[in-house]
């Protein structure tokens, strides 16, 4: 136990530079590194540039969705509609860019705008109509899934004729500058989204109210703040971020796949909780969420590269999620 007090002193100081809540990040980062080392030992094919890029690419869409989910979860809510909202915005991009034929930037704006609007509706249902977030976003999840199928005519929409669309996710600006590092733009976009949202959370009024709503909504209300408005703004922001995820996945697949999306919300939520964000609200970080998304992607890829039977991959993934959150729980009890 004496060791316990002495040992973490150094990394704690180091990590404090990056973020407060250092312990939790240390744990998540340590798990990520342990996984990377474990898989490198497990398979000689794991640690190669192309596979690391494949992992980052696999993490990019889930990562962006998880960032959106983090915002809502910090307010003490939950957003089950992130996956099908992503699909819906991809379909909106598909319709505007191919059927209507608007220029590329307008199609992107339409998708992100549709995401924000949908988020605003969820937020209104939660804040004004007082429908519990779980139910409101469950309803939205189904509405959006249905609408995606209706608008697309249940057929995938292909972007083959939209010049440059597939480059949004598949292209590599970094690779053009440094040929040895062909990191796809999708990954770059994930990190840009993360930095921007982390800034909003930590440095702006919106971010402060996000945490305050999750800690004690009543106290915020009693101090004269229009909590409904801030909550709606946060859901709308989360929706807009889902719109970015929609563009990313559509670009990666060079098509909008209207049936896709169910189940993606749970993976996003898993990344959020592995990253140390509390499902009861008031506490969480974007760094943690990104690490959580990376852990999920490394785990999935590593188990595959090790040729572990698929049924066992699922078992191990579930166990790691529980383990990661349990470790975080232990740390928290200790802190009390």
């Amino acid at each position, binding site marked *: 136990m004496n060791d316990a007090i002495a040992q973490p002193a150094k990394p704690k100081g180091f990590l404090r530079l990056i973020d407060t809540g250092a312990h939790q990040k240390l744990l998540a980062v*340590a798990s990520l590194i342990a996984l990377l080392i474990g898989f490198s030992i*497990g398979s000689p*094919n794991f640690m190669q540039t192309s*596979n690391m890029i494949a992992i980052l*690419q696999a993490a990019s*869409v889930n990562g962006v969705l998880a960032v959106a989910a983090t915002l809502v979860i910090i307010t003490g809510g939950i957003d089950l509609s992130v996956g099908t909202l992503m699909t819906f915005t991809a379909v909106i991009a598909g319709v505007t860019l191919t059927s209507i034929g608007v220029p590329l930037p307008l199609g992107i704006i339409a998708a992100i705008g549709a995401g924000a609007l949908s988020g605003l509706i969820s937020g209104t249902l939660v804040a004004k109509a007082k429908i519990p977030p779980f139910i409101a976003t469950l309803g939205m999840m189904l509405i959006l899934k249905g609408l995606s199928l209706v608008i697309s005519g249940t057929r995938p929409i292909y972007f083959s004729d939209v010049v440059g669309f597939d480059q949004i996710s598949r292209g590599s600006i970094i690779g053009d500058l440094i040929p040895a590092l062909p990191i796809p733009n999708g990954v770059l976009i994930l990190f840009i989204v993360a930095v921007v949202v982390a800034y909003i959370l930590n440095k702006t009024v919106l971010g402060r109210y996000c945490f305050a709503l999750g800690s004690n909504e009543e106290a915020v209300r009693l101090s004269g703040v229009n909590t409904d408005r801030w909550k709606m703004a946060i859901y709308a922001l989360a929706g807009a971020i889902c719109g970015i995820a929609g563009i990313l*996945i559509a670009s990666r697949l*060079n098509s909008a*796949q209207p049936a896709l999306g169910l189940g993606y919300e749970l993976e996003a939520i898993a990344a959020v909780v592995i990253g140390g964000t509390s499902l009861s609200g008031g506490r969480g970080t974007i760094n943690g969420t990104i690490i959580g998304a990376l852990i999920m992607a490394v785990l999935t890829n590593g188990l595959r590269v090790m*040729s572990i039977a698929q049924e066992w991959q699922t078992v191990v993934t579930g166990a790691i999620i529980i383990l990661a959150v349990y470790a975080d729980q232990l740390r928290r009890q200790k802190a009390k």
Partner: protein
Amino acid sequence: MITRRSTLLALPALAMMAMGSPALAQDKPYIALVSKGFQHQFWQAVKTGAEQAAEEFGVRITFEGPDNETMVDRQIDMLAAALANKPAAIGFAALDSQAAIPLLRQASDAGVPVIAFDSGVDSDIPATTATTDNLAAAALAADKMAEMLGGKGKVAVVAHDQTSRTGIDRRDGFLNRMAEAHPDIEVVTVQYGQGDHLQSTEVTKAILTANPDLGGIFGTNEGSAIGVVNGVRETGAENIVVIGYDSGTAQKQAINDGLMAGAITQNPIGIGYETVKAAVAAINGEELPNIIDTGFYWYDKATMDDPQIAAVLYD
């Protein structure tokens, strides 16, 4: 704290050691199969066939597929992980052939032959495609239906979907054959139940309500066929000739109970077997035909236990 943290660190590594590392210390050629699905009985049967061929030809295989057939991006991730393992060949059943083309091209640039299975890829990258001739198989269903109805009457189709290749081919194979060879049989409607048991049941009940004089219904895949059987049973309609597709415990049971007249079975084990066999041939630089027809069979109560049929049916 220390111990707990080290436990956390050690666990993944321990888990890996416990599960062993099949990727190591193997000099057999490695063939990665990325399928459309994994947990459905049909795909498990494809896997069984692939494993048989792997043993016979002395290669090592892995077999993976996403949880459901909408997860196009997950399938691409699986293909990327498979490529990281530097396979000698890849077997691929595309959920969306366009989405996978960049990775397939990467494989072909690296000299890794690609064998398409179950459904084709709209590209010249695959060396061959191992698949069922769904048009011909559905035409056989139409012939059997006509035979049992004495060449005249009204029939309906409960199809699994209107967009996938198999959905389109099975529907059109049945409709075209009826139009060409059995002019006195009228196909009154084609409805879609998404291959879901419950949805197909509801669709069937609606069809039976709308067409009380219906003579027969064709269900185009396992889920559709079971839905048709359920729908007929729930409405209590009699003398409806039900013809199914694929197998599975419930469908075999329905045939044994006389609720279903018979069904078309593909040869999923053959699909898996031929895919690996073709991959081995491609690795050895042999010429392959464009399409490898893996075959299909008609089966009913009388023939279900024939060794040749029983071998391709699955539970």
